[in-house]
């Protein structure tokens, strides 16, 4: 029986958000997805801040929400919430902020203060208990917010873009802090983030959501290296083409993708003709030619340039066939690439992995 089991769903104006979750105790699950996909909605449903139109929720052996029954009110759910905005109570000191959860649960003032000081020390904020939030830096405030959420000893912790408001230097510190503290406290966590690095560092499992529905799900390493949906691929920084198997050769399989190009690559496991499959390859494996290539390599696709974006090592070229190629700026200049230019793309079959879809 999973520690957290949810099949809550809610009707939105454009689509229904329905993301079933089964999370084990101590697991960290990351929710990834494009803007407006419904990630925050899922968190609000779990926290009880939004009423579901169907489904139920069980946590730590308690039924928190079930159709027909009165849902357990927010203060009794033992579910903590931490967002981009630390939302520290401005009129209370850092120590009183952290002590708020324990005191609300009945702990005495003195004991709560001691517990708060300990939690703040674990966050590296020794001796800052008497400071008011306005006297703290952004990073310090987020630490206090984490301390406050953990001090309340929640059964489930929800993180909504926790690093979103932090600057480039502070974010890695807090990311690391989250990693150590969550592991140490063994807190079951559901994390919503845009940044794949957060998922890569913090998450045990990743759930990818698009338009309210789950489109990919699995262990973090698998989702990031072998994504099954365009969005996961996008955030994992890989090319993904999905289609049906139309043929096979010596160790290779050919897939006709949705946009009518033939992709030949190495099959990971046995794939029968007609089976649904996904082809994954890195943008740096794509070669770009101004004209048809002599010798006809297996993967050879004519395309038009539709976008040029900065990428980690140069420029990412996006094309009309849904394939991205990474080139150096020098190569771009040499080819004279502009938006609308016609090119020919070529990829070695050995660089492409084909998975069942």
């Amino acid at each position, binding site marked *: 029986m999973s520690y957290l089991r949810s099949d809550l769903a809610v009707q939105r104006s454009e689509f229904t958000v329905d993301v079933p979750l089964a999370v084990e105790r101590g697991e960290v699950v990351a929710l990834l997805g494009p803007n407006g996909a419904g990630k925050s909605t899922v968190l609000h449903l779990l926290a009880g801040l939004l009423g579901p139109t169907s489904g139920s929720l069980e946590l730590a052996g308690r039924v928190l929400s079930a159709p027909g029954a009165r849902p357990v009110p927010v*203060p009794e759910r*033992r*579910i*903590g919430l931490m967002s981009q905005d630390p939302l520290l109570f401005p009129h209370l000191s850092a120590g009183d902020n952290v002590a*708020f959860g324990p005191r*609300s649960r009945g702990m005495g003032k003195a004991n709560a203060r001691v517990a708060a000081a300990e939690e703040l020390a674990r966050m590296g904020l020794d001796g800052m208990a008497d400071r008011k939030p306005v006297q703290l830096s952004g990073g310090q405030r987020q630490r206090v917010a984490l301390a406050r959420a953990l001090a309340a000893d929640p059964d489930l912790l929800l993180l909504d873009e926790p690093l979103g408001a932090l600057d480039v230097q502070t974010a890695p510190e807090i990311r690391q802090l989250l990693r150590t503290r969550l592991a140490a406290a063994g807190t079951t966590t559901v994390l919503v983030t845009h940044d794949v690095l957060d998922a890569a560092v913090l998450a045990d499992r990743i759930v990818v959501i698009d338009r309210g529905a789950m489109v990919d799900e699995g262990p973090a390493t698998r989702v990031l290296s072998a994504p099954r949906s365009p969005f996961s691929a996008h955030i994992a920084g890989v090319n993904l083409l999905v289609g049906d198997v139309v043929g096979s050769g010596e160790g290779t399989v050919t897939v006709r993708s949705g946009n009518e190009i033939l992709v030949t690559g190495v099959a990971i496991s046995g794939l029968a003709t007609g089976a649904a499959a996904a082809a994954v390859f890195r943008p740096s494996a794509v070669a770009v030619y101004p004209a048809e290539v002599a010798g006809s390599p297996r993967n050879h696709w004519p395309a038009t340039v539709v976008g040029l974006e900065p990428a980690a090592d140069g420029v990412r070229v996006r094309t009309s066939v849904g394939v991205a190629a990474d080139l150096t700026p020098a190569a771009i200049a040499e080819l004279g690439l502009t938006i609308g230019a016609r090119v020919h793309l070529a990829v070695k079959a050995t660089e492409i992995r084909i998975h069942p879809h």
Partner: protein
Amino acid sequence: MRATSPPGHAAGTRTSPAAAAVPRSLYLPAVIGVGLLVLPLLALLLKIDWAELPEAITSPAALNALKLSLITGVAATLACLVLGIPLALVLARSSGQWSRVLRALVTLPLVLPPMVGGIALLYLFGRQGKLGGYLFALGIRIPFTTVAVVIAQTFVALPFLVLSLEGSLRTAGTRYETVAATLGAGRWTVFRRITLPLVGPGLLAATVLCFARALGEFGATALFAGNAFGVTRTMPLAIYIYFTASLEDQQTAIALSFLLIVVAAAILLVLRPRPAEGIR
């Protein structure tokens, strides 16, 4: 040619950009406006017989009115807090059709002449009134008593407190309350430890405003509570009767007016109205 500086600036000082942006022709109406507000008060202060003032202020008539005003004013403010804080909270957290209706009802005493309020109260509680008939039969008399003064003052001052506090509550928003709830705080704890403290300054300002309005209330009090010495003759009523209908007591009226001006100045010191949105 030397640029002319706006009135009030010492010759030769640099004009600040803001001052330079005001059209010259608007200064005259502005000055007249200030004059209209300040000159009558100055005239009153000049008319005071300063030698007689201490005696006038400590005369039984003046002290009695002052004491009655303070007692009823404080009582009315307390009533406003007990009734107004919950009402402001309900208004601030509601939306849609009903909240608009509710807000309009609460605003009513603000736009009504207080006299109308007095008549309305009399028609409710008076001997011939809807509720009053029953109360009188039970021996409960409300009109023309000190309780009536408190009711009249609460009637006119409550909207001040509610609307002013509602503004502060809306500005503060509900985000902190949400966080507090996830940390395990029940509704009453959230209200006590988060909602109220967060609107502290706003609540303070609203309370002082409410007290000031209650203190200055005349119309509703005159009609619903009457003007009996020691029972219902608050400062404004005392000023009215001593000034208009008593040859000997005009100095008392002026002394009481002076007291009210002093109270008003003290209130402004506490409230300290700020240029833009004022209440946090």
